[in-house]
């Protein structure tokens, strides 16, 4: 169990570094989502099921959805902006 936890922790750190270094925002949000899921597993191993549930629902679920919607919105704004420029 201890070894499993350490593997997860290492993975967590790798996820964090890559989430902050990846250039593409969408990819880095996805990496961040997996970070949250790993975090929730670790919390389950640390005997805190309340936190695991909350993190899975809030951190990995709703936060990620908000990130995705934001990226989509930005994309739409970008296209809209180009559209306007084309009109001119």
């Amino acid at each position, binding site marked *: 169990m201890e070894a499993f936890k350490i593997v997860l922790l290492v993975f967590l750190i790798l996820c964090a570094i890559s989430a902050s270094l990846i250039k593409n925002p969408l990819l880095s949000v996805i990496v961040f989502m997996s970070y949250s899921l790993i975090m929730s597993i670790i919390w389950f191993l640390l005997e*805190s*099921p*309340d936190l*695991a*549930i*909350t993190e*899975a*629902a*809030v951190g990995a*679920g*709703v936060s990620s*959805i*908000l990130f995705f*919607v*934001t990226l*989509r*919105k930005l994309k*739409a704004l970008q296209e*809209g902006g180009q*559209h306007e420029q084309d009109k001119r």
Partner: protein
Amino acid sequence: MSRIRDNYEDSLWNRLTKWVNGESDPFAGKMEMEPLREADYVGDSVYNPERLDKKKVLKYLEDTEKNQEIRAFRVLYNLSSVALCLLLIAVLLMAVSYLPVLGDPNGPNNNEVSARYVEKGMEESGAVNMVTNMILSYRGFDTFGETCVLFIAATCVIILLRKSEEEIENAKETDWKYEPKPDAILQKITLILVPVIFLYGFYIILNGHLSPGGGFSGGATVGAGLILYVTTFGFHKTQRFFNEKTYDMVKVGALSLYSVTMIYYFYTGANLIENHIPLGTPGDILSSGMILPINIFVGLEVACTMYAFFALFRRGGM
């Protein structure tokens, strides 16, 4: 015998009278001051701070985009950021290496505080889940504050992103992305999934005092179900049962009931008055006094707020 001073123009008194009469400007040419111009008073009310420096500033701004030095500076900046990161980590590791050992039953935080929560929590507030018990009754004020954080964040998002009905109508023509295309498979699966998600969410909320979870996680789950529904069927269908009015009503209702409960609890608790909240048998669904209703209020508020975030981000209204 009066002598006419030949330098009368420059004398202090003359300058003072001139200044008092408003004929000269004592600041002209000094510090921030430009000489006063008629144009500054007439008509043009455009904010125009630095008339003279405008060209300079524009040139400077152009430069920042393709200057070698600035590039070098940015490389340096990245390097220093890594250095800062490592320094911070080193300091913290230093501290952590002296902290008490993890998992030690005799560690400093396994003291009389947590002991009482574990030992007496069930009989004092009737909930089986100690974490829910602790955040809602022992440290109820914190949790009340936390709900207010969510409330105020929702308010700020509304301030930033809510559009009026007209704007939404106008945007519709150009932005086809608001409404999903009808997709039979997606809709069928959603119709099966959404009730399950709702059921699970409500289960988490209602069993907050018995099993892991509670208002926040359950509310987020219900909110996720609503979000799934709206992404599949579009805002038009969702508005039939959930629109801005409903959102306001649910939010205000849940939060005000929550605050009434909390005021009653604070007042009776601090003044040592018996609060007459029946605790029930620990382990039953209808037990644990005020924890169950608070979980429901919080769950409703969180579910609505999560959905509201989504709707505001996506469309600018509900």
